[in-house]
């Protein structure tokens, strides 16, 4: 088999770019899971809704997808607040062991509902945002760097820096971290735990909306993409461990790199299996994940 340096370099570069999208999709899930101890398996459906919102804004009103974030993110925040108040607020009242099981059930129910609504409203067709610059690319050391994909990496890094600042430097962020670490003690120090849960869930929804816009721009959205993105995000979350936003983002890139390397070596048809085996090996060696904090 003839694998030139160029092909290897190109697939590694593509992997980093795709991986930053995995990372972005995982950030919101990791945040919600880490703080609320609730596993929102409808996370991918929120991402899908974000993608559709951006798609329709572009298609009907001609709003540039990056500009449309001004609308997409508030829309997802509203949806997130609604879902939290309507559903997940009731789940966090269970003790921690039952939060996960109950949130799985609620999440599946929610995913079914959102998927069906999306099929009814938008049909099952693949939709993607095709801007005038969608196919533009830079040349870099003989490698092709598509700009919309590169923007995912840049946005991802900016989001991680922003989240890091928010969680470590602001009062609300510190309160959220305290809630994640031990909500009882947090409540005793006067933190409004329920409000922190609400803020975290809304933030998680906003992050999935952002990721959804990038998915619609770089790939495509259809009503059924939710589960596969939830799954990718879950793998990244578990791989990274809870409690580290940069770690989650890096784990997303690592996962994509592993997939790319294994498809270079073993061929495309077994890359999922190889990815899984590596995932299981890492988990056996480091059950708390690669970057997991001790408390989480």
């Amino acid at each position, binding site marked *: 088999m003839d694998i030139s340096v160029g092909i290897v370099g190109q697939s590694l570069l593509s992997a980093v770019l795709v991986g930053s999208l995995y990372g972005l999709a995982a950030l919101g899930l990791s945040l919600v899971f880490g703080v609320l101890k609730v596993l929102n398996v409808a996370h991918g459906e929120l991402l899908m809704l974000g993608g559709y919102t951006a798609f329709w804004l572009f298609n009907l009103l001609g709003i540039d997808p990056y500009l449309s974030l001004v609308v997409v993110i508030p829309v997802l925040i509203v949806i997130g607040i609604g879902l939290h108040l309507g559903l997940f607020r009731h789940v966090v009242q269970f003790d921690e062991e039952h939060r*996960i099981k*109950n949130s799985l059930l609620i999440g599946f129910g929610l995913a079914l509902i959102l998927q069906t609504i999306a099929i009814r409203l938008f049909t099952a067709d693949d939709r993607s945002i095709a801007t005038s610059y969608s196919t533009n690319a830079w040349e870099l050391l003989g490698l092709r760097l598509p700009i919309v994909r590169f923007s995912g990496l840049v946005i991802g890094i900016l989001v991680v820096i922003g989240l890091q600042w928010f969680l470590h430097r602001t009062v609300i962020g510190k309160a959220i971290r305290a809630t994640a670490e031990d909500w009882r003690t947090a409540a005793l120090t006067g933190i409004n735990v329920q409000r922190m849960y609400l803020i975290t869930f809304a933030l998680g929804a906003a992050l999935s909306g952002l990721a959804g816009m990038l998915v619609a721009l770089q790939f495509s959205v259809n009503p059924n993409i939710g589960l596969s993105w939830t799954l990718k995000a879950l793998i990244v*979350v578990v791989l990274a461990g809870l409690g580290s936003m940069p770690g989650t983002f890096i784990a997303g890139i690592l996962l994509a790199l592993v997939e790319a390397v294994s498809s270079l070596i073993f061929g495309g048809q077994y890359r999922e299996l190889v990815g899984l085996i590596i995932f299981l090996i890492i988990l056996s060696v480091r059950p708390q994940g690669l970057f997991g904090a001790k408390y989480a």
Partner: protein
Amino acid sequence: MRSWRLWLYLIPAAAFALLPLTPWGTSDNLNLGISLFIVAGLASSWNILAGLVGRVNLGHVAFFGLGSLATRQLWLVHEWAFAPAFLAGGLLAAVVAILVGIPALRLKGIYFSVGTLALAEALRLTVSTNLPRISRLPGPMLREYDLTPRYYLCFGVLLLIVVTVFWLRRSKLGLGMIAVREDAEAARSVGVNVLWQSLVAFVLSAFFAGLLGGTFAYFHLSYYPSFTFGPVWTFDALLVTFIGGIGTIGGPLIGAVFFVLLRDVLASNLVNVHLIVFGLIFIFVVLVLPGGIVQITERWRWFSPHSKNVVSKEKVVT
């Protein structure tokens, strides 16, 4: 167990056993019965690990798919007789469960769930890329296709699962599993081998799922091999168990009857929105009836009078 409870199982079982002999044994009803048995069997076998040991396996379909794929390939492609192919399917699922279980069961809580979910998805994608073609029963078999033996095979596998769970519940092995569920550390301190107990439950659960996969391979005229690896099978089993009542023997069975009948009614009457109704029902169960249908009849909770696994109604005040 008091005898009237046993009748609650024996009477429906007898009714299902006699169904093909009565005028109601139409092919529609037999088909419905087969899908009921498969869903009930998947839920009951999933419940062995989830209900007894307390581990949420989100990749249960992997074993269903493996059993189904192995049975179908050996039976149709390699032209084995059906019975050995069927057993081989179950055994393959069990062997894979041993290989996966030893590392995976060491993972705690959600990590185990995500690991098994990833396993099932990886298998599904691998099967769909490597075996993209539809699997059809060949012509001669199609001509002598008879629903009745298929009905009884599915019924038999379901009976085997339920009887095994009854037996487990009364055996030392099963009690050890429940001890692991209630408190793994305490169980370990009194000499329960936690990994061994979990592994036995996992392998039993996988073996039964593999057998059910074999019945599916026997039943269906044509399907895509990757279809039997679809995550929807796991979710159905999980939802049925939760709706009926996790950690009980009757829960998955009642849940399956409820689920299959409801799906049948909704799918024919509300074609477009039946999934929305389903979704609403699941949410309703969590919020209003967290112990499942058997919670209504509290006395049906046999696994443990203080079962922690029946989702608690106790709320934490913040």
